[in-house]
């Protein structure tokens, strides 16, 4: 199997789906001839033709709306929003339209669209190239929200998203595009090819939405993470010398509550991590769910490690980013080992 980085794996997913299904098409700002600013759609226009992978006007609202219209016709559009930070002009179309089309028409119309967008910090992108806005989508009934953490999952989850009959917001952790990142930012970037999860089959396969993965097995404590923070949590477990079980949620909606419940009931301790701002973040939902499902098995208060309640500051990237030290400290608190 070829070793692929995340960019290649995502590209391969779209390539496979464009080949398999004539109703799939890909569009967004700069995705056509140029292949996208992160090169995720490179070569797709050349291979599949001008009308199957093309550029879009700079109008995120228009991009989402056009995709909804195409979906109503019967196509399966895959759209790219250049950065998650630029999704907001499309928010109304997602929340008021895509999310509710099925419900309000009693299944008469649906929006089988996949919206791909790079999210997260760690690239010195400042407040307009670093945001993690997943919680404002998980809050909306009718949208699915998916976040992969490695090339294998990225391809399999993207194929599932494209094949899914409901609208899926697919967040791509941009700091993981070229290699895993565990938050020790002074370390040189390692290529994905050194990791097993870069073994990506060329052809069609899928990773189901709503199924979490155990990224690191452990007995002492459960970490709930997704995207970049999966790698940070694994590094933090080593740093804290805690035998943590790191659960990679992979999809936030639908959420794999069984895997979470089984693990927390077994370890009795839980740390929830995300890069997004803290208040009303997806972590709040996770903490509430763990409390509802595992309260009588908990041996310590649930810890939450997140980005601060500020915009993402350019010069203070590493103070903002919830790195392994902060996650490790939370793990040790949860273990009562200050």
């Amino acid at each position, binding site marked *: 199997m070829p070793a692929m980085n995340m960019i290649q794996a995502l590209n391969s997913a779209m390539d496979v789906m464009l080949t398999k299904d004539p109703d799939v098409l890909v569009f967004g700002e700069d995705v056509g001839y140029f292949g996208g600013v992160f090169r995720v759609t490179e070569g797709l226009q050349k291979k599949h033709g001008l009308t199957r992978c093309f*550029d879009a006007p*700079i109008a995120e609202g228009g991009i989402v709306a056009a995709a909804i219209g195409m979906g109503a016709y019967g196509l399966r559009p895959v759209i790219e929003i250049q950065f998650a930070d630029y999704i907001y002009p499309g928010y109304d179309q997602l929340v008021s339209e895509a999310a509710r089309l099925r419900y309000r028409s009693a299944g008469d119309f649906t929006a089988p669209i996949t919206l791909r967008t790079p999210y997260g910090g760690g690239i*010195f992108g400042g407040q307009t190239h670093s945001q993690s806005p997943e919680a404002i989508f998980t809050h909306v009934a009718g949208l699915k929200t998916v976040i992969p953490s490695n090339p294998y999952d990225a391809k399999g989850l993207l194929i599932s998203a494209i094949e899914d009959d409901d609208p899926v917001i697919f967040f791509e952790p941009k700091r993981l595009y070229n290699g895993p990142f565990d938050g020790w930012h002074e370390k040189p970037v390692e290529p994905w090819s050194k990791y097993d999860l870069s073994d990506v089959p060329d052809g069609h396969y899928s990773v189901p939405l709503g199924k979490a993965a155990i990224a690191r097995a452990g007995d002492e404590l459960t970490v709930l993470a997704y995207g970049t923070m999966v790698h940070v949590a694994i590094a933090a477990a080593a740093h804290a010398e805690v035998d943590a079980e790191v659960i990679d949620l992979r999809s936030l909606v639908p959420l794999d509550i069984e895997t979470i419940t089984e693990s927390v009931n077994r370890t009795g301790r839980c740390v929830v991590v995300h890069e997004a701002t803290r208040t009303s973040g997806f972590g709040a939902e996770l903490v509430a769910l763990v409390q509802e499902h595992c309260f009588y098995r908990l041996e310590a208060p649930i810890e939450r490690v997140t980005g601060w309640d500020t915009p993402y500051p350019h010069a*203070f990237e590493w103070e903002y980013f919830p790195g392994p030290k902060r996650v490790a400290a939370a793990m040790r608190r949860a273990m009562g080992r200050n």
Partner: protein
Amino acid sequence: MELTPDMRNEPTLSLRVPVPRARPGDPVDFSHIKPPPAGAAPRPDIREEPGAMRDLAFTLVRVLNEEHEAVGPWDPKLDPAVLRRGLEIMTLTRAYDDRMMRMQRQGKTSFYMKCTGEEAVATAAALAVDAGDMCFPTYRQQAFLIARGYPLVQMMNQIYSNADDPCKGRQLPVMYTSKKDGWFTISGNLGTQFPQAVGWAMASAYKGDHRIAVGYIGEGSTAEGDFHAALTFASVYRAPVILNVVNNQWAISSFQGFAAGESATFAARGIGYGVAALRVDGNDFLAVYAATKWAAERARANLGPTLIEMFTYRAAAHSTSDDPSRYRPAEEPQHWPLGDPIERLKQHLIASGEWSDAKQKTLEKEAVEAVRAAAKESEAVGTLGQSRPSAKTMFEDVYKEPDWRLRRQRQEVGV
């Protein structure tokens, strides 16, 4: 019997996707750009109804002719001192851009954006409006800020996110702010600030002020809904605002056809809103000056907004993250039929006996020197990562007063 579409024997539909005239490896093709002769466009009275000047949205207002003379009704008949000042600002801007681009390459900052080839658009406009007027720029109007006399050192401090950065290390490089210089803080989200310029202008009108607003948007970003909101509000409330569309032909890798520039001019968008519209040779300093002055006079006379398409060319890469040779012929910039704004103003000044090549050489040397001196001062404070404001500032200005969450989070960082 009713005929179904298939029985009508009509061709099937086909989806059209725009394609630019030339991609890498193709010969450059600007044959569709046929600039009208300088001096040909009429200059209406500012009291003219927008509907009576529709033609100005489809031509190009040009002042400088092939012989480098200023001709026609739009010639602003400027004092040579103003022209030399314009040349100075443009030359300084270019030297500044070149240096900051190099500093990014050397790892002294994370990002930079040049305005090479578009210097006249912002410089002439800055000189044509009043000091109190408010500019709502995009990231490509640095020449406007320089023209307002804002210190280069401060700009560099922002680029380096250092301890003296006026944005306190929070913003991506080039997102300057300076209220006192009439420069609205740049957002980075495209199009958002265009209707805000209209709101500022409405406020000025509400207060019985004399100040006007000057807004900017790239042609690619006119696709955003905010562009249309700006025109609607400007039209409805006759806001005293100049709305500039900088058509530099490219939006990263997307040519202006992806903003529907093949079907109509960008100036023509004003017509549907009943907004006075001009299409201007953006590389002609005198034309930009004259058009801006005309629009400013209209706005100040309570006659409402003007939409100006500044027709120009993005000669450099979109940003330091971009490589234009991947999507357009590498030699395209050299073939831009409307030339270079600095060169054209220089030639005009030489032709009118106000300048010389030797003086230009000296000016360029002085510009490089001024930029170098500023860089020395700014780098003494520090470049990205070497120096920055105190980390506690990252929790300030989220609100006027931080609430308990921010205080607690700041304590957790230990600052």
